[in-house]
């Protein structure tokens, strides 16, 4: 029976070596091309090759896709693909009460049970069936080997294709086309015809298996979503940041310089930009985090759009140089793809715990604009905006993303290059005497570039005299310069869009204020509660420092302000301090994003009061 449903959540899970990330990524791309709205969430271990078959070694990829608006990778899962016992152990808890488990029973033998830390006598799948789940047992490993028995490939090589069987099977189950993945395989294995043949064959075998074997009582159709008209692509957060940076450089007529040091989950930005040399991008893998930001400061001095990215520990190392960039008043974009902290923390898990570091974490009085992206596709606009502020206001800017956004993906209605606004560097006027710290009405100094005769100037980290930039230890001058630099950054609030309510009423009982990657979960919760007639609105802050001028007005239009954050209460501290409002924190610090239901429950609890 073919059943049409609004949305579905599928979780592909297996051992780190089972290729589940690739499987999930293929399923997402195909669903995006199919016209669904979607959101994805990869969840993989920090270890490159965690011990095989163990729960610690399980790699998962979750996708929520639908014909309706999708804002999160979903809550409970409809279909869990479990390639081994450990995968089921880890993710069974995430299944809906009547959810489906597609189990590769070759991954549930005694050895796999033992590796998953279970007694060898357990029959996990019977237990799951007894618990009310719909269990579909398939010998995926065996069927893959069967399909490839004449391929000439070794058993090990054959087994590597078993994820394609899974992909084909789930394509069939959800009525997807397999062509996009066939094209992908053709590209990926263009120089390895035997692997191309094997993967293609197994993908088709999986699909046909679904068709011929009557294991599934239902087949599902998820129709196209009614997204606004336009051109779309599927995009992940780090990729969108890279494209935003390249676009901003083009619109400012500046060369792009990117320096980074490998760190999870920011490295993909470096990879992406290293592969864009034909866009004039110079990427530099530095010897350490400090060198990366140092080189970026040098590139900024050279007259380029300079960018560096890292995650919490790396940002900590960059702090001193960030202070220098602030003192030099030179354009620089510093991206923090946050992960669980403190210290090395949870490298592959998500968190929002670097907000206070971003806003306050420097020696001396060094306010730096901070803006945050809320979703994978939003990364493009926010990266572009970070560059605009840095260049037009001659300041370093911190962009906050996180691991959830960096690796997650969703459809993006991409703009035309010609629709992007120009960015205007504040160049020093040629043939005029140059005073490096003379300011315009926005308190912005002008930018003189080496190579311009008559503009030779020296600057540095020592306190400088107003206008001339000469070293100065004068007490009055220091106070004046500290206040002037602060006023300059505060002035940016007049050059950003006003804060808007994302959804829900303009005034009412409850306002949920979020920032960053909690966007989707909060929006889903609020839309759902609005349907239930609850007076709740959602406001999401992009500009965290300085705040939009009208933010306070919105906050005062509601009886209660709740601030959900994936930290121990950081934005809530700032809001309470700045506006003397009794904002209520809602904190989750598990390395995982909020589920919309968690936010819904908290609001209802609050209203019960």
């Amino acid at each position, binding site marked *: 029976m073919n059943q049409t449903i609004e949305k579905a959540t599928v979780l592909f899970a297996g051992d780190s070596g089972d290729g589940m990330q690739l499987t999930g990524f293929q399923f997402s791309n195909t669903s*995006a*091309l199919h*016209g669904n709205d979607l959101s994805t969430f990869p969840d993989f271990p920090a270890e490159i090759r965690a011990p095989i078959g163990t729960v610690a070694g399980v790699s998962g990829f979750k996708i929520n896709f639908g014909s309706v608006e999708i804002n999160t990778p979903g809550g409970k899962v409809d279909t869990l693909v479990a390639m081994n016992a450990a995968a089921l152990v880890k993710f069974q808890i995430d299944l809906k009460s009547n959810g489906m488990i597609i189990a590769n029973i070759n991954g549930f033998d005694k050895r796999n049970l033992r590796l998953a830390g279970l007694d060898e006598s357990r029959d996990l799948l019977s237990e799951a069936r007894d618990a009310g789940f719909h269990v579909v047992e398939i010998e995926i490993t065996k069927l893959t080997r069967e399909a490839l028995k004449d391929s000439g490939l070794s058993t090990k090589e054959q087994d590597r294709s078993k994820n394609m069987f899974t992909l084909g099977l789930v394509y069939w189950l959800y009525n997807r086309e397999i062509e996009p993945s066939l094209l992908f395989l053709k590209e990926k294995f263009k120089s390895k015809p035997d692997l191309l043949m094997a993967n293609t064959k197994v993908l088709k075998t999986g699909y046909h298996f679904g068709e011929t074997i009557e294991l599934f009582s239902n087949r599902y159709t998820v129709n*196209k979503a009614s*997204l*606004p008209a*336009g*051109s*779309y*692509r*599927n*995009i992940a957060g780090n990729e969108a940041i890279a*494209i935003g940076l*390249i*676009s901003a450089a*083009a619109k400012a007529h500046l*060369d792009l*310089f990117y320096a980074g040091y490998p760190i999870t989950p920011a490295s993909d930005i470096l990879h992406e930009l290293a592969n*864009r*040399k*034909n*866009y*004039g991008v*110079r990427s*530099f893998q*530095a*010897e350490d985090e*400090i*060198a*990366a930001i*140092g*080189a970026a*400061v*040098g*590139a900024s*001095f*050279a*007259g*380029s759009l300079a960018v560096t990215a890292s995650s919490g520990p790396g940002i900590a190392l960059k702090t*001193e*140089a960030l*202070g*220098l960039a602030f003192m030099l008043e030179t354009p620089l974009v510093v991206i923090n793809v946050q992960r669980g902290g403190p210290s090395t923390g949870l490298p592959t898990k998500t968190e929002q715990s670097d907000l206070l570091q971003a806003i306050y974490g420097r020696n001396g009085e060094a306010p730096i604009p901070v803006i945050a992206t809320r979703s994978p596709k939003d990364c493009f606009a926010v990266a572009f905006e970070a560059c605009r502020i840095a260049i037009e206001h001659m300041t370093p800017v911190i962009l906050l993303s996180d691991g959830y956004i960096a690796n997650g993906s969703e459809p993006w209605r*991409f*703009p*035309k*290059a010609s629709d992007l606004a120009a960015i205007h560097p504040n160049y020093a006027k040629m043939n005029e005497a140059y005073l490096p710290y003379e300011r315009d009405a926005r308190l912005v100094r002008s930018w003189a570039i*080496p*190579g311009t*005769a*008559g*503009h*030779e*100037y*020296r*600057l*540095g*980290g*020592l306190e400088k005299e107003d206008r001339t930039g000469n*070293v100065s230890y004068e007490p009055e001058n220091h106070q004046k310069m500290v206040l002037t630099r602060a006023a300059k950054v505060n002035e940016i609030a007049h050059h950003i869009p006003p804060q808007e309510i994302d959804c829900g009423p303009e005034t009412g009982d409850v306002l949920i204020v979020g920032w960053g990657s909690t966007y989707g979960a909060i929006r889903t919760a609020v839309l759902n509660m609005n349907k239930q007639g609850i007076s709740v609105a959602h406001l999401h802050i992009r500009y965290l420092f300085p705040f939009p001028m009208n933010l306070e007005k919105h906050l005062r239009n509601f009886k209660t302000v709740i601030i959900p954050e994936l930290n121990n209460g950081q934005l809530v501290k700032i809001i309470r301090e700045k506006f003397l409002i009794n904002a209520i924190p809602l904190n989750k610090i598990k390395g995982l994003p909020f589920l919309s239901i968690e936010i819904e429950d908290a609001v209802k609890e609050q209203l019960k009061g």
Partner: protein
Amino acid sequence: MEIADLLKPKDFATDQDVRWCPGCGDYSILKQVQSIMPDLGVPRENIVFISGIGCSSRFPYYMNTFGMHSIHGRAAAIASGLKMMRKDLSVWIITGDGDSLSIGGNHLIHLLRRNLNVNILLFNNEIYGLTKGQFSPTSELGKTTKSSPWGTIDHPFNPAALALGADASFFARGLDLDTKGLRDILLRAHAHKGTSLVEIYQNCNVFNDGAFAPYSNKSTRQRSTLLLEEGKPLLYGEDANKEALYIKDMKVYSAPLESIDAEDLWIHDSKDAMKAHLLSRLFDPYTEDSLPRPFGVFYQEDRLVYEEEMDKQLHTSIQSKGIGDLDSLLQGRNHWTI
């Protein structure tokens, strides 16, 4: 170029008061640097001085070029980013023994191996001057300072060996008071394509006075210093009493000049890496019978220059893929229209 030709050393001085202690070796180095500037043939606006933190790092304020007095140890990293984006600029890094061999050690060795075309002037005074007299990574073992009242137990760096170990493509040693020698070295450092590391022995007359006296005092310098001259034998000592260096079984010996066959003389060849390594090991503390300390250009090698390779990759990429089109980047490989 014409304008640069007309400039005088004083055109490279700024209106800022020079604030080093009276008698500091930095004055002499500043003077030599200002004096060679007109000879480089580089317009003033295309010259950039980048420094870190320390006494020497005040240097950029006194040069009427573009300049940045940055943060401790990071000048090499900052200059690297600058040079990658602007290979047209003549970039000079001003640093000290604490700045580049202690807090900035990592950036120094990585700059040397990458070989960007920049010049590093490392003012080595074997002491922390700006913080008032703690031992530095080049202070001699056992040195008593405020932070080492019982004498240091830190084995000092040998900057020449460190540089060559990091595959520096140019290493030279100069002395603040040897104005002629310094001038020659600076010009050769500028002419070298790649990272030129110039270690300059600089006397801190307040906290480490006389650290290099054996190499500057009239009474000892002929005996204690070895002037490296291209294509010439390595000789030292008084004119009447010349000693010559020679190599035997990969070890360095000295003997009276007249006692050595001409073909056994060590002829200085700055392209010879093995000999440069041996020169770098002539590093024993000065005594009356120690081998002399070499001054001049130890080593110079032409090898790939980082920012040029970076440019080549850029151009190759453009040749093979075409100049990047923003719209095709925005739309990606797979897109659809609603």
